[in-house]
């Protein structure tokens, strides 16, 4: 047996394919792309990549961010063309922010997400943002020498902490689109005259890999409630002369389907929100607290209704209400799953909101 042990590594090499060993590449001559924007273009697609601020040498002297742009008939062609534009080897393995232009989103995001899913270096772990009212190239370039990477990372972290729009990864959006046919992604727009920076503009809703529409204001906050994420804004209500500000710290929305025979006849939503009093001019009595609770419940119900009205009109259940409700009745859900967008658009929704005030 021992005589043949030398053959094991040889066999391993043969099995994995001798020419498929990973290729060595020095990191010193790499340009690490952090942000990538994809737009619709005449040639096909327009790809823009940014490294974000770079450091050089032991002291880490800052260098301007490297922005590369290429138009091509295909995404892979554009990425390859970007290699030729840089002195360094352009490495896509660190792209963690993906920006999609409005035109491309309207045309269809599937080719981009497919490419990200299949590429060796890229992956679906990147955060996905939809650019509203501008191209992704403009958005990527808006950061100037410092790039947009830091701004996007801050938005992502804030969103995870409930202080900004709910962030979504490309993988989450891709999965939702494949499984539910609809998904939502946070929307950004470049704002400002001289120092342009990316600001939040609600959410973009995708249906069948195409942009169905935008949710803004109360409707966007309603979508966050549907998704079970606390809204990043303050709820302010005057109680007589007492101005009270409160903040949602936790939300749980439970959808359920009502059936009559084989067919669903209604969708009910039970939304329970934990709200914390942040600021008031005078301590609240029991009656005032009750009054505030009623006001908050009314406000949250209005938000949910605004979001649901829009989503039903687009036939886009991007919050996955049907799938979540179907878990309680899997057999019934299986029967209506394929036609769920139709059912979703016309089912009456009964909304119950309960606020726990602390």
């Amino acid at each position: 047996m021992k005589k043949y042990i030398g053959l094991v590594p040889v066999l391993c090499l043969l099995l994995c394919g001798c020419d498929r060993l990973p290729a060595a590449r020095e990191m010193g001559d790499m340009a690490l792309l952090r942000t990538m924007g994809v737009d619709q273009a005449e040639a096909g697609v327009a790809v823009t990549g940014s490294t974000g601020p770079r450091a050089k040498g032991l002291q880490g002297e800052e260098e301007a961010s490297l922005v590369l742009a290429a138009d091509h008939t295909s995404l892979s062609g554009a990425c390859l063309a970007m290699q030729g534009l840089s002195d360094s080897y352009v490495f896509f393995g660190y792209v963690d922010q993906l920006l999609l232009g409005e035109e491309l989103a309207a045309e269809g995001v599937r080719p981009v997400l497919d490419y990200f899913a299949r590429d060796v270096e890229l992956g679906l772990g990147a955060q996905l943002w939809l650019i509203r009212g501008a191209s992704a190239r403009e958005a990527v370039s808006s950061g100037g020498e410092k790039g947009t990477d830091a701004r996007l990372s801050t938005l992502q972290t804030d969103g995870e902490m409930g202080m900004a729009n709910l962030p979504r990864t490309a993988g989450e959006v891709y999965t939702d689109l494949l499984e539910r046919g609809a998904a939502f992604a946070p929307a950004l727009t470049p704002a400002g005259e001289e120092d342009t920076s990316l600001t939040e503009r609600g959410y973009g809703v995708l249906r069948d890999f195409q942009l169905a529409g935008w949710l803004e204001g109360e409707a966007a906050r309603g979508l966050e409630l549907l998704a079970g994420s606390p809204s990043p804004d303050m709820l302010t209500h005057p109680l007589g002369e007492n101005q009270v500000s409160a903040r949602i710290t936790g939300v749980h929305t439970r959808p359920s389907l009502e059936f009559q025979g084989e067919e669903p006849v209604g969708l009910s939503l039970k939304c329970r929100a934990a709200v914390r009093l942040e600021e008031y001019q005078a301590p609240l009595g029991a009656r005032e607290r009750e009054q505030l609770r009623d006001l908050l419940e009314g406000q949250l119900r209005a938000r949910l209704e605004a979001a649901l009205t829009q989503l039903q009109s687009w036939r886009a259940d991007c919050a996955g209400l049907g799938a979540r409700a179907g878990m309680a009745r899997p057999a019934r859900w299986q029967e209506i799953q394929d036609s769920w967008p139709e059912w979703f658009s016309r089912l009456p929704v009964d909304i119950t909101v309960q606020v726990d005030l602390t």
Partner: protein
Amino acid sequence: MVSKRGQDGPHPRREPRIPGELSLKGLEEVFRDCADFNKRHMFLHGDRDRGVTVCYIDGMARTERLNDYVLKPLAQNPVLASAPREELFSLLEQGAVYAQQATRETRLDPVALALVNGSCALFLDGRDDALVVPVATEEKRSIGQPENEPALKGAQDSFVESVRTNTSLVRRRLRAPELRVREQIVGRQSLTPVDVVYLEGIADPETVERVERRLEEIDIDGVEAAGNIEEYLVDGARSAFPLMAYTQRPDRFCQGLLEGRVGLLADGIPLGWLLPGTIDQFFKTGQDRAYHWMVASALSLVRYFCALVTLLVPGLYIALVTFHPEAIPPKLALSIVAAKQEVPFSTIFEVLVMLLAFEVIQEAGLRLPGPIGATVSILGGLVVGNAAVEAHIVSPAVLIAVAIAGVAGYTMPSQDLGNALRLWRFLFAILASLGGLFGLALGCAGLIYHLAGLDSFGTPYLAPFTTGTKVHRGHPSLFRLPLPAMKWRDGAARTQNRRNQR
């Protein structure tokens, strides 16, 4: 003419070493041209008709003992002058000289060896037999502290070069009469006593027999270094990993005997070996049983972790930076890219050169006398650590990776294990240079295969982590349970009596 084959062939061991019947003349012939061989002719109680010749080797025999307990009675005891001539020898043998032992010898070989070991031989005029009386000197290094295995909480004595002192240190701790000390002489020229020490009824008799058989088979000139014992006792030439655990500490040696292992002590080597050696033995320290079990367990886990760190970190760094950069966190990657931009060498070259530089500095520090060695280490550390980075010869991340690997290696309680890990670290770095994580994984598989193929006196090297001996181990090897819960002796040692407490 002796054929070439005859010159190169094995030399048969000659038994007895010095053939022939004993005589004073024969003994003088054996020790001809030996300046330290002495003989003194004297008369018993001044009787010129009754002469005796005392032979001894200067420096091996203790002068005071020789004078007080042998020469003085010979010169002053009136019985020796008046007793019948034919009874003189038996008088001397039975108490006329003051010694714990007096043996009559008729053959040359044992007398010559006894003289070398510090005895003196008494030849009565007209007789060829001799009375051998031990008057050996006990000059030796005093028992000191175990410098390589310092004890913060425990015994402070250490083995010395005298095997008899070492056996006494063991017997003082294990007073059970079942403690067996079986001696063999190893080395054609050195004639070194090597003692096999074990507790009868606990140690595996088969292992004892294996050890004794391997000792008998050793046919070398001398036992001057630990390797003379280790490399002949185990088939370890194909492995850098140690197969015999050793200790300077008698308390740890005794603990090994209590666990059912077989001990080995060699004269001239201030160490004790414990057999069979399994891999967990080299991760244990003498302090493991002294500390609280939680602390000892945590430290044990740290040592195992450090073994992985010292083995894998340089290779892992090469694999990640050169082949799989996407696996590095972005901020770390950016700082690596920034630092690497001005370094002219490839990462693989950087790591291998730094590993080599680390070994060179370490070796230079060890070989030079203490104060100079420390200076070289500091100077080398500064040159490699600071100047090389500032001169853009190496990047700081490489320096950190190599330093972490190096320092982690120093946590190994066994220097031999640490050395083996150092060798394999180079191999892993080269494999990672060839195939990235794939190469590293292949190397790890190779290491496990290699370790799984080793055995020490019939016990698989990886026995603590396998079921190789088909004996239930009783307690884990990675960490230590509270001592009252460790009711079983080490299963890997195949002890006769497994239970060690009520």
